[in-house]
């Protein structure tokens, strides 16, 4: 298993460099000018100097090489310096956002907590409600509970989050006034009062995203349980005199979880990708919103770095899913 993991990690390096190259070239070929947002009163020669200052005068391979160097060498040095008080970086140039002129990673670090709180929490909530619904729906297939679960899943999966989000805002924020419609990032949780305020402002975006996630995962769970409930080993377990709780929650569930765990693991990178639309609807200034603003402003370093981080997470969680597969299914061995 260890050898397999190391082999996969080594193989991931060329994959990631290739991904970075593709993203870079796509941004390179895309129309748009980082100077377009500058006031029109700036004379063309000054504008040209600003372009040069941003490094845009250099050929693409120099810029790509420098970005790789900054991403893989300079930025980690800054992290180490920040963590241990060393001075490896020695003032080297970091990846700088075109828009704010501050280091990209500092901006990302500011945005991550909101995304993790809202999107991450919605994923956890979604998984927690999806699994029992899927299990019960399969065990009592075609019962009223299953029909209801199937209906809600269908709605949750097919109605877009920008619709459910706005609907919730209209009902619960505008008409009833129970929850705020805008996520307040400056809120600091320091006592019970502010904790409740935090819960209130999280409630609607978490609900919207959890509904969507739960709809998807509960379908997988149900299908996987149904596959396994008809297997011969289930009959064997019953023939051994095991009660239904053990038959279903031990024998069947353990087998059914194998594909579902993979689906759950593969879904985690999307959490970091942020729910771009939901973050917009509820004004959560998370990573998704950051990406949208960066794209609008042709902030190439920001878009490149964010997109690349998502790619790293996707590659990483693919590996994690494969390893989990080996952990949960004894038939799979990677040696």
């Amino acid at each position, binding site marked *: 298993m260890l050898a397999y993991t190391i082999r996969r990690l080594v193989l991931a390096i060329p994959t990631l460099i290739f991904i970075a190259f593709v993203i870079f070239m796509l941004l390179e070929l895309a129309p748009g000018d980082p100077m377009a947002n500058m006031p029109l009163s700036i004379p063309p020669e000054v504008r040209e100097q600003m372009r040069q200052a941003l490094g845009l005068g250099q050929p693409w391979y120099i810029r790509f090489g420098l970005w790789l160097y900054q991403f893989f060498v300079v930025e980690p040095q800054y992290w180490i310096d920040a963590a241990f008080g060393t001075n490896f970086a020695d003032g080297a140039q970091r990846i700088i956002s075109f828009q704010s002129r501050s280091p990209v990673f500092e901006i990302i670090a500011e945005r991550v907590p909101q995304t993790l709180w809202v999107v991450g929490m919605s994923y956890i909530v979604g998984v927690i409600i999806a699994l029992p619904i899927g299990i019960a729906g399969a065990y009592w297939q075609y019962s009223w509970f299953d029909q209801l679960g199937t209906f809600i899943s269908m709605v949750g999966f097919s109605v877009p989050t920008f619709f459910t989000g706005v609907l919730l805002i209209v009902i619960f924020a505008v008409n009833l006034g129970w929850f705020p419609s805008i996520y307040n990032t400056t809120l600091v949780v320091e006592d019970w009062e502010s904790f409740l305020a935090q819960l209130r402002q999280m409630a609607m975006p978490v609900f919207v995203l959890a509904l969507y996630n739960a709809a998807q995962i509960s379908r997988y769970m149900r299908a996987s349980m149904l596959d396994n409930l008809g297997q011969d*080993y289930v009959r*064997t377990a019953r*023939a*051994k*005199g095991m009660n239904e709780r053990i038959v279903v929650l031990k024998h069947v569930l*353990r*087998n059914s979880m194998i594909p579902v765990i993979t689906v759950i693991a593969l879904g985690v990178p999307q959490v970091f990708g942020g729910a771009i639309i939901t973050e917009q609807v509820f004004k959560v200034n998370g990573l998704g919103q950051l990406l949208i603003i960066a794209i609008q402003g042709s902030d190439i370093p920001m878009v490149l770095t964010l997109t690349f981080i998502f790619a790293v997470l996707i590659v990483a969680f693919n590996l994690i899913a494969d390893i989990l597969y080996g952990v949960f*299914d*004894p*038939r799979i061995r990677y040696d």
Partner: protein
Amino acid sequence: MPKGAPPVLDVRSLSTVFHTRAGNVHAVNDVNFTLGAGELLGVVGESGSGKSVTMMSLIGLLPSPPAVVGPGEVIFGDRDLLKIDEKALREVRGGEIGFVFQDPMTSLNPVFTVGMQIAEPLRRHMGLSKKAAADRAVELLELVGIPDARRRLGDYPHQFSGGMRQRVMIAIALACDPKVLIADEPTTALDVTIQAQILELMQELREKLGMAVIWITHDLGVIAGIADRVMVMYGGQVVEHAPVHELFANPRHPYTQALLKTVPNVHGERAKRLTTIEGQPPILLAPPSACSFRDRCPHAWELCHRALPARFPLPGDHDAACFLCDPGLAPTSPEIQDA
């Protein structure tokens, strides 16, 4: 079976119906049989004749819905298994009645170790500690002839061959010293040499442990070698029943006769085509009101389309559900000379 001793299992007019969208399928119809202590009862019949469904009905292994078992009685010891509740039935399943299924490749749970799967009924029915259950599991694996048993407890089913897995299944079924072992085509999925090994093992275990066995198969060769008595099933009914030698020497039901003819003969002409029974077994959407073999029977006459033959007793603890065996009708039957 010693004369006069009460049977371990006494099944009386058992019926099972599946309520499906296509209609009610009467899979088991008025089945009666007994099983004596230490006896091996062979149950034969082609696919769809109701052999497995009958046996699964006995201990409530059929999913309900769609299956509805009853009316009828299944007397096991002093209880009627169709009357006791699910909890009491679970005590019987795996505890007093063991079950071995057809396909050892799928009958074991792939994600649990073999040791855990054998220990599970031991801990459940006999209340053994983890340690005691593991020791007993080793004993059982040795009993069914798996070498290096203690080390193999931690292995998963996929690390065993088909024959070895069936041995594990037998070990599970025998774990709690059952009074009755129901083996549902236990050798069908195995190749011939492994089949022979499993048959030998079962013979040996039966002598050693003295339990009664119900052996379901469609292989008459297997039955001839191991059974004490044989019950032939067709259309969810028992059509003939006799001690094994009597049945092979003197088959009375046309279906049994046809079945025996289909067994390939090693001594005959080489080029001869294999004998088959023409047609399909019936799907019974209503309880049978006439002989269910009539459409495939070479001897069928008018009465067979009109009335359901009872199991007529014959000499030598033998009976057959065919009008050819009805002592009252025999002289008038135009076909009796051929039978």
